[in-house]
């Protein structure tokens, strides 16, 4: 289950691009999940460890992947950190849910991500553990926790 904390946590990895650049493993892009998200989100193909190909940019390393894909790869491979999934666009949402199918994943979220109409996540602010499946309820919770005067993101 994806366990979402709206807003900042002291231990969150806020900037996943920088973290990825300093912590990635070349082999991360070689598994089927990685190849799938790289193909779908970044319109690119994995050729070899840390070698990715795209018809516009040619060949590049995984540090050139989009922030959303990097975040997905970090969540998949670094299981003891809390990552800020506001580095991900809505097109990453199905993959976040897929990653959370078999294990609990705690993340921070600083905006109202669109998970579509068929989803289940837990919002864990205020020590709550409420499972949310309704997009409107999710949106209102995002508004409540993210737009308070005290909240600086």
């Amino acid at each position, binding site marked *: 289950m994806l366990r979402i904390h709206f807003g900042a946590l002291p231990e969150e990895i*806020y*900037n*996943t*691009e*920088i973290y990825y650049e300093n912590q990635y493993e070349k082999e991360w892009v070689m598994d089927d999940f990685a190849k799938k998200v790289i193909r779908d*989100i*970044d*319109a690119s193909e994995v050729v070899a460890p840390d070698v990715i190909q795209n018809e*516009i*940019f*040619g060949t590049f390393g995984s540090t050139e992947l*989009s*922030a*959303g*894909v990097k975040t997905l790869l970090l969540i998949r491979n670094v299981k003891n950190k809390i990552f*800020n999934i*506001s*580095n*991900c*666009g*809505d*097109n*990453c949402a199905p993959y976040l849910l897929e990653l959370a199918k078999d294990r609990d994943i705690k993340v921070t979220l*600083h*905006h*109202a*991500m669109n998970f579509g109409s068929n989803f289940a996540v837990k919002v864990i602010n205020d020590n709550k553990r409420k499972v949310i499946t309704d997009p*409107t309820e999710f*949106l*209102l919770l995002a508004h409540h926790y*993210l*737009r308070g005067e005290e909240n*600086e*993101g």
Partner: protein
Amino acid sequence: MKGKISFSIQNRHIAFKLDLERNVTIITGDSGTGKTKLINMVRMYSELGKSSGITLKCEKPCIVLSGSSWETVLENTHESIVFVEESTSFLSSHAFASAIQHTDNYYVFVTREPLPQIPYSVDAIKQIVKNGRKPKTEKLYQKISVSDVSTFPYDVVIVEDSKAGFIFFSRASEKKSPVYFRRR
């Protein structure tokens, strides 16, 4: 600074175009659409100019604001287009919102986060959409036309309060019985 400013940046592989019509423009959208690429190109051009291999066309200087010394850089930046990329920690701070208030720059923020401390128009929120080597920049939110209201295709409408907006949409969607949530 006032008025519309046209901005374009390109290298051999990709070209971006942006019309900046207000002092704050927000760029958001899906992953993999080129937002980071755009910021990196502006950064490289601002550091190396034409020798970066990038062509930038804009009547004003363009910079990327980042790092812990952002306040000092901003104090010395005038009549410029200032880009700030996503996951820049100061972007959502009150200090930053205060610092940009009386400057004469235009700002382009690449972010998905709400920025309640910074006033900006809904028309200033744009998204980059994949389009091969020439990604498109388009407004994220569209105005509702008279025909939209008469057919009213929406199931849920969320309005800010119980005043004019609530009354308007109540009347507009009379035949559809949508659900309303309003802030009290």
